[in-house]
C-alpha cells in the first residue's frame, strides 16, 4: 500500500523533448518540401507552356506566306509582316523543331522554306535516289525525299541558312535572351546584300555579335558557378552571405624564420630522438 503513495520511479534516461517542441521543426520541413515541390512544378509548367508555344508556331508558320492581293510574295522578297512573324517565332526553335516545321509544310504540299509560296517539287520517278546535274561537274546522287522537300535549290539554301543559326539548347533556357535574333538569307544582288558589303557596317555587326557572345558566355559561367554553390535560379531567394573583412592585429615586427638551435632537431620524432643507428646495423649485416 505504501508503494502506491511513493512518487513514480524516476527514469534514468535523458528527458526527451516534448512533442510540442518538435512540431515547428517538422512543419518547417514540410513547408520547405512543399515550396520546393511548387518551385519544380512551376518550372515544368513553364517548359510545357513554351513547348505549346512552339507547336502553335509550327502550325502558324506552316500556313505562311499569307496571301496578299496587290503584291504576290516570293521567297526572295517576302512581305515584311511575314518576315517579322517568321524571324520572331523561329527564335525559340531547336533544329529538330525546325525539321518538324519543314515536314509539316511538306505535308501540306508546300515548299519547306517558310516564306516561299510555291508548292514543293514532285519527282516523277520511282526509286529512292535521283541523279542531279548529270554530265556536269557538280553531279550528285541525291535521295528523292531530300529533293522533294523544296521548290528549288535556292529555297533549300535559304532554309538551311536559317537552320544553322538555330541553337541546340532547350527553348526555355533561351526564352529570356533577347540577343538571339535570326537573320534571313541575304539575297545576292538585293539592297540588303549591298549594305552588308559596307566594311564599317560589317565591322559594327561583328563587334555587336562578339559583345553578345561574350555576354552570353559570362552569363552561362555565372549560372554554372551559382549551380556549384547550390544557389537556385531564383534571384530573390539567392542566399546572401555576409562577408566581413577582418584585419589581423599585428603586435610586433615580423622576423625572419630561423632554424632551431639544436642541430638534431630534424631527427626528433615527437620530441624523442631514436637511438637506433642505421649505419651500425648495416655494417653488422655486411
Amino acid at each position: 500500500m505504501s508503494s502506491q503513495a511513493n512518487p513514480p520511479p524516476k527514469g534514468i534516461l535523458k528527458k526527451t523533448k516534448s512533442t510540442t517542441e518538435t512540431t515547428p521543426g517538422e512543419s518547417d520541413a514540410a513547408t520547405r518540401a512543399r515550396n520546393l515541390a511548387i518551385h519544380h512544378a512551376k518550372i515544368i509548367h513553364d517548359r510545357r507552356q513554351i513547348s505549346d508555344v512552339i507547336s502553335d508556331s509550327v502550325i502558324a508558320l506552316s500556313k505562311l506566306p499569307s496571301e496578299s492581293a496587290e503584291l504576290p510574295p516570293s521567297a526572295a522578297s517576302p512581305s515584311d509582316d511575314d518576315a517579322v512573324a517568321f524571324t520572331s517565332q523561329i527564335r525559340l526553335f531547336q533544329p529538330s523543331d525546325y525539321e518538324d516545321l519543314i515536314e509539316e509544310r511538306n505535308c501540306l504540299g508546300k515548299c519547306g522554306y517558310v516564306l516561299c509560296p510555291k508548292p514543293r517539287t514532285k519527282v516523277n520517278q520511282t526509286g529512292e535516289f535521283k541523279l542531279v546535274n548529270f554530265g556536269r561537274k557538280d553531279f550528285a546522287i541525291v535521295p528523292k525525299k531530300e529533293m522533294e522537300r523544296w521548290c528549288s535549290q535556292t529555297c533549300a539554301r535559304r532554309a538551311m541558312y536559317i537552320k544553322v543559326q538555330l541553337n541546340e539548347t532547350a527553348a526555355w533556357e533561351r526564352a529570356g535572351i533577347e540577343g538571339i535574333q535570326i537573320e534571313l538569307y541575304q539575297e545576292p544582288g538585293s539592297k540588303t546584300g549591298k549594305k552588308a558589303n559596307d566594311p564599317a557596317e560589317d565591322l559594327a555587326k561583328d563587334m555587336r555579335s562578339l559583345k553578345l557572345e561574350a555576354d552570353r558566355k559570362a552569363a552561362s559561367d555565372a549560372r554554372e558557378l551559382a549551380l556549384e554553390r547550390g544557389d537556385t535560379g531564383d534571384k530573390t531567394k539567392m542566399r546572401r552571405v555576409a562577408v566581413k573583412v577582418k584585419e589581423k592585429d599585428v603586435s610586433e615586427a615580423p622576423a625572419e624564420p630561423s632554424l632551431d638551435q639544436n642541430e638534431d632537431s630534424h631527427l626528433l620524432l615527437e620530441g624523442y630522438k631514436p637511438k637506433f643507428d642505421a649505419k651500425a646495423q648495416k655494417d653488422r649485416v655486411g
Partner: protein
Amino acid sequence: MADQEDANREANERSIVRTWRAWRTVHEMAADRGYELTQEEVNLPLERFRERYISNEGTVNRSLLKFSARPSDDMMRKFQKPATPNDPSPGSDCGTIWIEFLDESTLGAEQMRKFGKFCAEHNYAAGVLVSNVAVSASAKKEIAKFAQWTAIEWFLEDDLLINITHHDLVPRHVILSREEKAALLKRYRLKETQLPRILVRDPVAKYLGMKRGQVVKIIRKSETAGRYASYRLCV
C-alpha cells in the same frame, strides 16, 4: 478522251473498294474491342456501301464516313477502375468511341488538333482517325497533348485493307482486366517487369487499342498441348 474517262472510273472504283474494306475492318476492330455494333453494321456489303456513301461524281464521300459506338456492358465491367474507400463505385476506363475517316488530302498538326478538340469536347473516351496520307511528326506530338482527355489513335487506310487478326498466323489476343492481371501475377509470383513484353505500336496491340501496362493473353495452337497460352505486358 474515252480512254481517260475509263482510267478515271477505274481509279475511282479502286478507291471505293479500298475505302469500303477499310470501313469494314474499322467496324470489325470496334466490335472486337467490345463496342456495341450490330452484325449488319459490321458486315456491310459493297452494294450498300455504294448506295450510302458515294457522291454524285462517283467518288467516296468521306465526310459521311464517321460513327460512334458505345462500349458493351461486358467491356465496361472488364475495364472497371479499381474501387477505393473514397470512391466505392468508380467508372470505367473505356467510354464512347468516335471513328472518323479524314476528309482532307493532308494530315498535319492542325487537322489532328481539330480532331482531338472535337473528341475532347464531345466527351469521347477514344478517337480513331483513319487517313490515306501519312501523318507529320508535329501531328503525332499533338496526340500526346490530348492524352489527358481522350485517347487518339491514328490508322493508315492502307493498313486496314485486310483484318490482320483474321490471318492464319496471328493467334488470338485477349486483353486481361485488372483483376485478371493481378491474379496472373499472384499465381506465378511475378512482378510486372518479369513478363514478356509487347510494344504499343505492335500491329495487333494497335488493333486492340492497348495501353501501356495492360497484359494480353495470347492463345496459340499447339500440336502437343492443344492450346498454349502466353502473356505479354504492353510497353
